[in-house]
């Protein structure tokens, strides 16, 4: 008989705690809108933050109370968004496709080096060590911080040392914006094809002596574009995207340094045939 005692005790303990769990489930239950759980299940679950919420569950809560539209989620496919809208009986809303663009076009081939960074890999690490050796102290360092930070594997550093964003994979979350020590990434609608690929706050030769594709603030693009579309702010052209509809490639034709671009699809496309040198060097 004694061999029965141990199993009996175990069963007893199991029963005891099982009952406690069952009772507390009843008594301590928190009523929650079941739709939140369901909506959360339909979201991609990446918690990327592109919608402006800290994660998918908070976003689902906002959806259910109607504060946000499902299309704010840039990760979910169009079908998923439609499904969520149908389920919640709300309007899906319209959201333009957003992508991350780099405000710098000076890779290894274009920008001058004044010194060589010689520490462990990482843009921020290099930036902290006296600027990382790049002549332009505003330009892209190309040391993989954004590539490592990207949740969706959308960024690859190309052989020219610039991050190439795959617009199909990019969900416009703020990963790369946070990672970049020079603050070069911004999220813009894909439809905005006219884009200034430079952040140097210097004009004329001071700028072009640092980088072959620096904006020298000549102002030709302002003249060539339809009136009011581009204006010069300090030493950089600023494009008024509210009148984006009138933008044409003409504005870029006379740019001597190629710093304003008409981008169809991926940035740095002309470099796309180059062998891609980037890969995650540390993680």
């Amino acid at each position, binding site marked *: 008989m004694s061999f029965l005692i141990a199993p009996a005790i175990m069963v007893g303990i199991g029963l005891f705690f099982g009952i406690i769990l069952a009772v507390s489930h009843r008594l301590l239950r928190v009523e929650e809108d079941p739709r939140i759980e369901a909506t959360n299940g339909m979201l991609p679950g990446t918690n990327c*933050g592109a919608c402006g919420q800290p994660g998918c569950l908070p976003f689902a809560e906002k959806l259910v109370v109607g504060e946000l539209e499902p299309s704010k989620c840039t990760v979910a496919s169009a079908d998923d968004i439609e499904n969520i809208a149908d389920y919640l009986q709300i309007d899906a809303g319209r959201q333009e496709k957003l992508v991350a663009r780099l405000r710098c076009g000076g890779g290894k081939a274009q920008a001058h080096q*004044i*010194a060589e960074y*010689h*520490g*462990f890999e*990482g843009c*921020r*690490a290099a*930036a*902290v*060590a*006296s*600027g*990382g*050796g*790049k002549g332009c*102290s505003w330009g892209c360092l190309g040391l993989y911080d954004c590539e*490592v*930070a990207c949740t969706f594997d959308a960024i690859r550093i190309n052989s020219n040392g610039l991050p190439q964003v795959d617009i199909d994979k990019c969900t416009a979350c*703020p990963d790369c*914006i*946070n990672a970049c*020590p020079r*603050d070069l990434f911004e999220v813009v609608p894909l439809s905005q094809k006219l884009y200034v690929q430079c952040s140097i706050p*210097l004009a004329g030769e*001071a700028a072009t002596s640092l980088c072959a594709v620096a904006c020298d603030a000549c102002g030709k693009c302002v003249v060539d574009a339809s009136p009011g579309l581009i204006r010069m702010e300090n030493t950089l052209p600023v494009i008024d995207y509210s009148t984006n509809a009138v933008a044409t490639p003409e504005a870029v034709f006379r740019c001597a340094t190629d710093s304003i671009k008409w981008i169809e699809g991926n940035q740095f496309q002309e470099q796309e045939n180059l062998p891609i040198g980037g890969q995650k060097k*540390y993680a």
Partner: protein
Amino acid sequence: MNPLRLFHKSFDHGVHPAHLKEQTCDLPMQRVPFVKEYLMPLGQNLGAPSKSIVQIGQRVRKGELIAEAAAFVSTTLHSPVTGTIKEIGDFRNFDGNFVPAIKIEADIYATQQSDAGNPIEWQSLSIDEFIQEVQNAGIVGMGGAAFPTHVKFAIPEGKKIRYLLINGAECEPYLTNDHRLMIERPEDLLMGAEIVRQKLGAEETVIGVEKNKPEAIAALRQHIKPGDPVRLVPLHVKYPQGAEKMIIKTIFNREVPAGQLPRDVEVNVNNVSTVVAIADYFERGRPLIERIVTVSGPGITYPANLIVPLGTPVRELLRFCGGLTDATQEVIMGGPMMGRPIATLDSPITKGSSGILAFTAAETSRRKEYPCISCGRCVEACPYFLNPARLARLSRARLFDEMVNYNVMDCVECGCCTFACPSAIPIVQLIRTGKDDLRTRKETPA
């Protein structure tokens, strides 16, 4: 408590790098010849940059005010030479970034003699006037941080200073500028200390000097008269003894609470160079227009201790010292433990540059990194009692927010952890990167 404290009084933890001061510690200070052009960055101090008050083409005399303080935590700039303002614009600083600066062309026909200014009758000044005068002199902490000195003298209501601590530790290897200053100008040092002591109403001046500078200790001892309220304390040699909070811990055995200042434990700490600069101003009327710079390291042909007018390009200093050897790979501004690499030799000497050190491949080659074996050497080296191994691991995993829980912001980046690490992990570099991420992210929330 560390049992070793019984034998030699010092702060806990820390490391013992080789002193490496032999190259320059016996070389007298030398004045460098004047050069053609001087570059005065407006932001030479911590806090707000100074505001330029000169125009291009304007003639300035040596010692003339060229930029005024923009705020209370800011200071003035004076022309280091007699000459003409050539350009005002953005120039590359030693750290590779462009900063607003004034370029002065020296007048080759001027004598460039120090215009003997008028001594200032300091005894009758009130404390507020005294603070104003120190700001007018453009004096900043010359140990390296370049914090405006007058701000330190502004003691808030209800606080008082009991001790004036003169920091002559100079714990960074290679550097000997403070060392030479103590040997060659002990009277000025004691004079400046006396001025500050009287103005702050401190009871006693305490001078802390590490024991590896016996000549400096002897020189000071010779000039301290019996009965002076001055105490000379030889310190056990240890890095980072020159850090403000560490030298207070060593001498007074008091810990400055995190996030507070030395004045909260009734101490005011000043570097020896700063005190000499104060004496220069009140005794001779000369504002801060030059400083002592040690040029040393294995990549320098003729190491030296130099009296350098501010704004002199690093390249000219190196030229004066016989240039860099072929093996030179890196030039550092400051000491080898906490200095910053220089991105361009055209950058100028500023108020905070205590040394220019050139290093060869032997120092700059990266040793093979091994995994952390949690040996705890970094934990036992960190004078701030952080857990560097943990912080480095978090930084590598990009968990910067988690680092805050481990008090990363208390780190002063003294580099003891990297120095002590047998696996050659760039610990302080990783921490620095994490801190930079945390600091910049607060400004631009995404």
